[in-house]
């Protein structure tokens, strides 16, 4: 235990990992309890065709005849073994149902990250260097406005602008064919990815700017400058690494947000991902799918936060020394 407290970076990571596992455990309990409150899934499946005998058989099949704790253990144990249950609506394993959709959504989030992270770091840093100058004023005001717009508004506006009303240069919707991977239809990805970028980039840019401003004013940057290092070196070797630390947290939070928040984007663009799967599952009271998606999205949140913590520590020189 003592090592955990004073063991440097490795111990710090282990500590965070344990905490993450604990939070995931709590999340799983919450998901389980909340979905229990939604009524008898056996009745929901059988509907008006339910007979006492068929209900009993199905309850046994779904392990509903066990005690609550027993049910939880069965359910959570299945998760650990990669068994996410069977979809009530589609009557096929949840993993099969969601497999390609998870990939599709991940691609969307990945592309949005690849575009938005460098873009926002560049904008934020540049604005910090040009503080109170035209670029800073214009970009920070624009970022502020874009950040305030709900993303369905952004999506609808983009469709109006580029697909249906003003210009007709991009497809309005992005349906995927069976077996088709998102990267095979890059044109259809432009608008959904652009929507997500607009949803994420402004925040990251703002934090990057603030962080960079703080670092640029700090003593060690001044020290570096006094030592006569070239400005380029000062910025890249000293300022950027220290400024980017807090930004990791924001990036992590934004990516986690995207994992759940793409619901609207997928709806507007008719994109086959986990967002549309969630919509479908809640309408059909498809509990195993809702549970799996809730755990997946919560898991993404926990993991990303963990990664952000670790990345922050590793990248920020002044924090590393503190450990």
């Amino acid at each position: 235990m003592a090592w955990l407290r004073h063991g440097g970076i490795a111990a710090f990571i282990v500590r965070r990992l344990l905490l993450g596992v604990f939070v995931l455990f709590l999340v799983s309990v919450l998901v389980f309890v909340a979905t229990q409150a939604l009524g008898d899934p056996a009745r929901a499946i059988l509907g008006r065709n339910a007979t006492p005998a068929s209900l009993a058989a199905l309850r046994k099949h779904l392990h509903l005849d066990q005690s609550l704790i027993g049910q939880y253990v069965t359910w959570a144990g299945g998760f650990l073994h990669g068994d996410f249950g069977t979809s009530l609506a589609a009557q096929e394993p949840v993993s099969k149902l969601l497999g390609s959709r998870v990939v599709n959504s991940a691609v969307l989030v990945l592309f949005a990250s690849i575009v938005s992270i460098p873009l926002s770091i560049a904008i934020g840093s540049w604005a910090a260097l040009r503080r109170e100058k035209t670029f800073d004023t214009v970009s920070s005001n624009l970022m502020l406005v874009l950040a305030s717009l709900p993303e369905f508004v952004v999506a609808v506006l983009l469709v109006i602008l580029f697909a249906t009303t003003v210009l007709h240069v991009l497809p309005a919707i992005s349906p995927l064919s069976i077996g088709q991977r998102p990267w095979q239809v890059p044109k259809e990805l432009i608008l959904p990815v652009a929507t997500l970028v607009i949803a994420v980039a402004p925040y990251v840019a703002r934090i990057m700017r603030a962080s960079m401003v703080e670092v640029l004013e700090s003593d060690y940057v001044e020290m570096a400058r006094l030592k006569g290092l070239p400005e380029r070196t000062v910025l890249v070797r000293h300022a950027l690494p220290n400024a980017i630390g807090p930004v990791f947290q924001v990036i992590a939070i934004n990516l986690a947000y995207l994992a759940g928040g793409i619901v609207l984007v997928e709806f507007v663009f008719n994109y086959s991902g986990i967002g549309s799967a969630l919509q479908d599952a809640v309408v059909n009271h498809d509990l195993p799918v809702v549970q799996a998606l809730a755990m997946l999205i919560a898991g993404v949140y926990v993991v990303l936060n963990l990664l952000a913590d670790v990345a922050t520590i590793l990248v920020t020189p002044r924090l590393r020394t503190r450990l």
Partner: protein
Amino acid sequence: MTATEEAPAQAEGLGTPTPPVRSTMLLARAMRLWRTRIGALLVLILVVIAIVGPYVAPHSPTDFVAVPNSPPGGKAGLLGSDYLGQDVLSRFLYGGRGILVMAFVSTAIGLIFGVGIGLVAAYARNALDDVLMRAMDVIMAFPQIMLALVAVSLLGAHAWLIIVAIALTTAPRVARVARGAAQPVVERDFVEATESMGVSRIRIITGELFPNILGPMMVEASLRLTYSIGVIAALAFLGLSPDPNGANWGTMIQQNEIALSTQPWGALAPIIAIALLTMGTGLIGDGIARTAAGIDRERGDE
């Protein structure tokens, strides 16, 4: 409605929280910034539309005025008719109140609980702190829109349920910021001094801690309001609002988006309204945050 919402909270153990500032002074100084003024003006205009609109609307929001999707003019009125031949202008004037009331109520509830939990956690500095904050972590693992969507789809689009869902997801985010802001205050000597004088804990939390975190909380409040408006409008856009044909900006977008190329106003008017409203609250929040940071810098210089 993005998550950087948690931006101020991310710095747990990292940066420094915004320092305590008296709220009236902060507001007054924030109003010296153009962005705050523009934001306040936008919000004011839209709040006035939402409150006064129903009294000046030419028709009932459900009256049939002209052939569906008629362009503006004649019987169809200033903004034309919508997909059911209803008056877009009247529906627009009616459509803000529901969103604003629900957004304000849910944000307020979220703020009250969030601040309360955050302060207690910061003050406790023990196992209670850990328990509370881990509980907040658990709730935060569910994105706001997702939780609201699941709740509303399963239990129906009741106004109270939407409010509860948004308040529930707002509280932990507020709590983290409140805790972060209160921690440095707790560690200051005067709290210990007050404690030793035998002042009750509740008095210390409400009388000493709370006033000291008002600044960051005002920033947080305007941020949270922005997201609440976004989520409520988004739910309505997805067809999940208490009244399926209720005059509601989000519902209007969903109903009339399809007609954008011929009768754009049915969707465009509410889109513009929501965009200006969230921009307004965003600008106010940014103005306050900048002012607080500016005050901070001044102090640093002292």
